[in-house]
């Protein structure tokens, strides 16, 4: 039996009458990369602090490496942590910063030298070992911080928005490096971010958090392609929401009627009955613009273009449908722009398999 | 005399420049000559504050004003350096200075005081000794004080005080070189009449012997009483007037009048005072036998006029040392005027080693 590196059982946190975190379960397996993703105020930081021991949970248990650490002091939890603002000791050199966790563990000098050397080598900073952190760039400082978090092989490395303070280019580069590091060293990482792209590109699994609970937990693809709630659909990737009423529920599909009179097909969903108000979601990149009268898709809507926006690698066209709501469509950048000039009529089509159906009022 | 005219920035042009800066730029709206706001016609007497000022006011200045119509303003904190500053800058704040001891005579040498007008002031026929610039007006006695409950058998003379076998106990002495060297010689067995000129080496040798028994060398007069009452010392060298007021307040404390050192408090007139004549009149008044009697009864001082002692009430007289007692020593100011600076330095070195 493999033990989870981290296991949360019904962990909750209340401040006075405010529930910052509803009872939550979460397991992180060895060598797994799990991301807590959510907007600010969603409870991800509270959860992280409870795991780290900087906050006491109001209820539930925290297990690290199979050991109940709910009452364990922070320092004995065997965790590593990377902070958004690096939290490097300004009075210590890079080498001494990385050596810090080893020194407090009374590791021998020779071993410290070897391990710190290795860790700095891993993040390609061996040549800067004698510098003070202030003399380093932001990216370099964060690499030192990562080296410091892995040098003593903690059971679990927590990363709290580690790339938040870096520019986009550097952020992408470090995302890549952290991912590689994770794969090469097999460390277990619990990563916190509010950036859905970062979460999707790096994680084995994502725990999407909203209003103090985990809204959905799964692999990035799963969350993207099968969001369980409108919030999940909205938070990960771009999405179009269309209000509708269920007109017919069959064994295979749900037929919905828009207020403009059009009908759309969606996969069948348990608990949804005829007459329910629902929200249909379709991602912009799943919508095709259909020329002429071709009807190659099972869902088709006519719309009027509001104009295109150029994104370099793609083109986004916003359009207004009969009920007045807006829908955006993502097309390749070789699209003939004139066809989408404001006021031009458009026909939008997509597969019913790409249509997601949520009860109205769920999520935001 | 040339020394007194020097200032820290002696060249006149420089000084005018600074004056211009100081008064013009820095503080034009605030500057008031220190003198200007004091009562226009009153003599300004600088003297100590607290209970002492009350005594002076009651015994001397108030009756003086009643009798002559000359007002006297008492200000506190006599300080020779301030007197020097006032005299050298010509910015006089005070007219009369109440001072004592060697430093006062030193200041007279520096030219800070007017010569006494002997046509107004009778400088002869005194218990103490007037100098050209300083007139005695108050004589007080320094001697041993003790707690009669704690010390039933105290040393009553300085010779006894120095006899550690017969009178063991912690001693409090002053950090003043004058008085202390006299005590040392008396303690070492010198006859009071042979005291002056002081045998300085013998005095320091005697002090060296008694050093281990001195629990505190006291710089501030109040500690001569408070250290005795808080049981830090057993025998305190202090002053009869001080003990008398402490006793009046119910403290268990006695003063030995068997052997005392009489010290003189002087009045001098600051050099260049515009009220020189009135100041001389005031000094003359302060030394008058009837005024001395009042002062004596208020302060337990020995009158400076020989006859006045007999006018004092018997209760007070009992607490006063007898200046005619052969054991009593009158501190010789002339000696200290010449030797104060050098001996004080030697004394400080003695204290430090």
């Amino acid at each position, binding site marked *: 039996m493999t033990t989870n590196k981290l296991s949360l059982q019904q962990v909750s946190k209340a401040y006075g009458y405010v529930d910052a975190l509803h009872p939550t379960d979460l397991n992180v397996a060895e060598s797994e990369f799990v991301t807590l993703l959510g907007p600010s105020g969603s409870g991800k930081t509270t959860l992280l602090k409870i795991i780290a021991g900087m906050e006491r949970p109001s209820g539930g248990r925290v297990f690290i490496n199979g050991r109940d650490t709910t009452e364990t002091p*922070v320092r004995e939890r065997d965790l590593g942590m990377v902070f958004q603002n690096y*939290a490097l000791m300004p009075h210590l050199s890079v080498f001494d910063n990385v050596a*810090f966790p080893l020194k*407090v563990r009374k590791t021998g000098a020779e071993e410290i030298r070897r391990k710190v050397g290795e860790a700095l080598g891993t993040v390609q900073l061996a040549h800067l070992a004698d510098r003070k952190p202030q003399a380093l760039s932001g990216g370099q400082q964060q690499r030192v911080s990562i080296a410091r978090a892995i040098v003593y092989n903690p059971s679990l490395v927590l990363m709290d928005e580690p790339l938040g303070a870096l520019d986009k280019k550097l952020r992408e580069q470090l995302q890549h490096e952290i991912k590689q590091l994770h794969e090469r060293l097999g460390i277990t990482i619990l990563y916190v971010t509010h950036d859905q792209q970062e979460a999707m590109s790096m994680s084995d699994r994502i725990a999407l958090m909203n209003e103090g609970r985990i809204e959905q937990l799964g692999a990035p693809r799963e969350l993207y392609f099968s969001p369980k709630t409108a919030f999940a659909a909205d938070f990960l990737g771009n999405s179009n929401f269309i209000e509708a009423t269920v007109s017919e529920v069959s064994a295979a599909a749900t037929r919905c009627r828009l207020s403009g009179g059009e009908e759309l097909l969606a996969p069948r969903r348990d608990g949804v009955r005829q007459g329910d108000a629902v929200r249909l979601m379709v991602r912009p990149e799943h919508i095709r613009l259909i020329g002429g009268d071709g009807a190659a898709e099972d869902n088709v809507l006519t719309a009027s273009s509001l104009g295109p926006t150029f994104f370099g690698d793609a083109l986004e066209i916003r359009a207004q449908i009969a009920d007045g709501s807006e829908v955006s469509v993502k097309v390749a950048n070789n699209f003939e722009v004139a066809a989408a000039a404001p006021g031009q009529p458009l026909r939008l089509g997509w597969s019913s398999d790409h249509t997601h159906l949520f009860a109205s009022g769920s999520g935001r | 005399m040339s020394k007194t005219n020097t200032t820290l920035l002696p060249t006149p042009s420089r000084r005018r420049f600074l004056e211009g800066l100081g008064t013009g730029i820095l503080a034009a709206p605030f500057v008031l000559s220190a003198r200007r706001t004091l009562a226009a016609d009153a003599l300004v007497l600088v003297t100590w504050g607290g209970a002492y000022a009350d005594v002076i006011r009651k015994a001397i200045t108030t009756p003086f004003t009643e009798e002559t119509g000359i007002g006297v303003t008492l200000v506190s904190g006599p300080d020779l*350096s301030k007197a020097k500053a006032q005299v050298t800058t010509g910015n006089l704040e005070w007219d009369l200075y109440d001072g004592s001891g060697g430093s006062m005579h030193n200041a007279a040498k520096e030219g800070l005081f007017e010569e006494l007008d002997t046509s107004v002031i009778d400088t002869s026929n005194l218990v103490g000794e007037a100098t050209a610039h300083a007139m005695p007006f108050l004589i007080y006695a320094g001697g041993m004080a003790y707690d009669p409950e704690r010390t039933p058998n105290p040393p009553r003379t300085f010779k006894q005080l120095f006899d550690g076998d017969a009178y063991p106990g912690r001693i409090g002495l002053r950090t003043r070189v004058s008085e202390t060297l006299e005590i040392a010689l008396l303690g070492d067995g010198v006859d009071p009449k042979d005291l002056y000129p002081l045998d300085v080496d013998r005095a320091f040798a005697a002090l060296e012997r008694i050093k281990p028994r001195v629990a505190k060398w006291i710089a501030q007069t109040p500690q001569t009483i408070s250290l005795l009452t808080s049981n830090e010392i057993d025998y305190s060298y202090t002053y009869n007037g001080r003990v008398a007021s402490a006793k009046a307040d119910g403290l268990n404390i006695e003063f030995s009048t068997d052997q005392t050192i009489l010290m003189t408090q002087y009045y001098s007139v600051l050099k260049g005072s515009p009220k020189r004549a009135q100041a001389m009149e005031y000094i003359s008044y302060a030394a008058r036998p009837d005024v001395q009697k009042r002062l004596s009864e208020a302060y337990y001082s020995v009158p400076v006029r020989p006859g006045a002692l007999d006018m004092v009430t018997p209760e007070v007289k009992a607490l006063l040392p007898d200046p005619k007692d052969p054991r009593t020593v009158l501190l010789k100011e002339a000696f200290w005027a010449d030797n104060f600076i050098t001996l*004080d330095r030697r004394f400080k070195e003695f204290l430090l080693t």
Partner: protein
Amino acid sequence: MTTPMLRRDGRTRTMLNRLGFGSFVLPLTLFMLLVFCLPLIGVVRTSICDGDCSLVAYVDFATGKLFHRALINTLSIGFVTGLVSVICGYFVAYHLSRMTARRRRFFLVLVMLPFWTSILVKSFAFTVILGTDGIINNALQAVTGTDIVIPMIFNRAGVIIGMAHWLIPFAVFPILSSLLSQDKALRDAAEIMGARPWDIFWKVTFPLSLPGVIAGGLMSSVIGMGSFVTPALLGGRRDMMMANLVDFYVREALDWRMASAIAVILVLIALLILSLAAWLRQRQESGAAA
């Protein structure tokens, strides 16, 4: 100050703009030059020229046993007082730094309470507490059942106690300031990495607060070196300091040349200590950057 004038007068304004931030520093600079530096220069001058000009006071200082003793006393009392103040101040500052701002405001008032009680009265209070027949010694005797008396006053210890009592607040402020400016994340990071409270203190908190410690130590020792009332009231015969001599030469001997010379030497010592500290710090920093 000068602000209303500036708004109206365009020329002054452009001139000030050219001066830039210098215009903010200018008034104080002028003030300090006129009311601090110039007077200090006056002291230096008086130490050489008081009527006639000669170095006799300095020669006297260099050769006089009295001055050597006072110098040694000043240095050692200043050093020990600074040390004691910083150690006590650190405990207090640390405690203050770990509480809410509102609570801290209240505690700071407590720390500054000694300022409101005159040293003259306090010296008596210290006698009541620390004296031979004082509260502590009486308690000790009652507890141990002996006649034990610890001399805590009218000796070097008394001077240090009295001065530290006055100087601890001076040490508290810079230390507190450097403790408050520390990033809490650093301590969290250290704790997660497995550091015990003791390690966190000595390896993170304390080193980061060193600038405050140094500033507080320097301030309290230099201020301590310049005081003379406390040694006179609470010290023993050997605790005469240079400041006592300055006081004596100014006010009793009226020898302002000697007083000024001692004062100049006192300032030079303070300067020497400050530059030594600055040099040490610079060396430490540059050594780290290399």
